[in-house]
C-alpha cells in the first residue's frame, strides 16, 4: 500500500480504489470496449484513452471545486447523482449502442459538414472525453463513499479544491485507459491476422455496440426497475 499520508498519493489511491471496485465494472467495460475498439492501432486508443481520463478528471475537479468552496452540499449532490445519473445512463448507453450497431442512424448530425468523416478524423477523442465526463457523473455507492466521503473531506482539509480531486479523477480513469490500449494492441494483431480490416472493423463495432446495449439494459434493470416496482 502506498504512503497515503501524502495527500496527493492518497487522492490518486482513492481514485484507483474506485476504478477497481466492482460497482463501476459495467461502465468500465463499456469504456474499454469503446476506446479499445480502434483498429487504427494502439496510438489512437492511447489518445482516446487519455481523452477519457481527461473527461473524468474534469468532472471530478469541477465537482471538487464546487464542494470544497461550499457552493453545493455534498449529501444533496451525492444522492442526486447516484439516483438520476444511473437512471439516465442506462437509456443513454442503449441509444449509443444502437447507434454503433447502426440500428439508429443520426444522419442529421452529418448535415452539411460531413459529420461522419469529421467524427472519424477526431479519432474518437471528443466522444471519449464526453464518455469520461458522463461516466464520472454516474456515481455508485462505493465511488460516492470514496469521493464524497473520503476525497472531498481530504481536499477540504488540504485546501486543495482542484488538484486533489483532479488526481482522484486520473486514478479512476488510468486503469481503464491502460486496459483499452492493451485491447487495441490485441485487436491490431488480430486484424492483421485476418488481412481484412473492413470486416474486422465491422465485427469490433458490432461487439462494442452489443456491450453498450447490454450494459445499458443492466443499468436500467438495476436503477429504474426497483423504483417502478417499489424495491
Amino acid at each position: 500500500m502506498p504512503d497515503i499520508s501524502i495527500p496527493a498519493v492518497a487522492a490518486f489511491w482513492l481514485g484507483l480504489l474506485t476504478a477497481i471496485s466492482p460497482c463501476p465494472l459495467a461502465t468500465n467495460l463499456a469504456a474499454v470496449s469503446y476506446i479499445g475498439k480502434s483498429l487504427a492501432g494502439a496510438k489512437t486508443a492511447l489518445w482516446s484513452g487519455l481523452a477519457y481520463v481527461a473527461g473524468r478528471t474534469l468532472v471530478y475537479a469541477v465537482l471538487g471545486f464546487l464542494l470544497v468552496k461550499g457552493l453545493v452540499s455534498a449529501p444533496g449532490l451525492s444522492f442526486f447523482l447516484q439516483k438520476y445519473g444511473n437512471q439516465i445512463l442506462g437509456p443513454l448507453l442503449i441509444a449509443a449502442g444502437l447507434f454503433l450497431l447502426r440500428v439508429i442512424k443520426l444522419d442529421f448530425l452529418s448535415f452539411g459538414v460531413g459529420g461522419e468523416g469529421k467524427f472519424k478524423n477526431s479519432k474518437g477523442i471528443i466522444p471519449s472525453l464526453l464518455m469520461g465526463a458522463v461516466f464520472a457523473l454516474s456515481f455508485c455507492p462505493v465511488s460516492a463513499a470514496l469521493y464524497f466521503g473520503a476525497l472531498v473531506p481530504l481536499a477540504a482539509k488540504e485546501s486543495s479544491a482542484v488538484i486533489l480531486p483532479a488526481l482522484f479523477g486520473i486514478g479512476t480513469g488510468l486503469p481503464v485507459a491502460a486496459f483499452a490500449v492493451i485491447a487495441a494492441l490485441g485487436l491490431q494483431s488480430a486484424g492483421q491476422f485476418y488481412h481484412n480490416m473492413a470486416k474486422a472493423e465491422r465485427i469490433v463495432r458490432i461487439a462494442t455496440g452489443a456491450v453498450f446495449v447490454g450494459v445499458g439494459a443492466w443499468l436500467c434493470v438495476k436503477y429504474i426497475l426497483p423504483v417502478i416496482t417499489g424495491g
Partner: protein
Amino acid sequence: MTVYYFHGYARCASCRKIEQYTKEAAESFAAGQYAGRVAFAALNVEEKANEHFVKDYQLVSKTVVLQPEKDGKPGAWENLDRIWFELGSKDKFLVYVKEHIVKQLEAK
C-alpha cells in the same frame, strides 16, 4: 441506541454485505451486559418518509450510522465511514462496528 444502515432502491453486492454484517454485529449485543440496548434498522433513504435522514446525518452514500440515546434523547451520532475499507474481511468489519457500538454505549 439504534444502528442504522441506510440504502437506496438500487442495491449492490457490497451494500448487501454491509447490511448483513452490520445486522450481525448489532444482533451480537442481544445477550450479555448490553442486552436490549442495541437495535438495528435498515432504511431506504430514497423513500419520501426517510429522506430527512440524508440531511440529518449528512449522508453521502450507503452507510452505517450509530445513534445513541441519552436520557431518552438522541445523543451525538457517528457515521462509520470506514466500512467500505473494512469490507474485505468480515472479521475486521465486525470488530470495527462492534468496537464503535461499545464505545458509544460506554460514553458518558
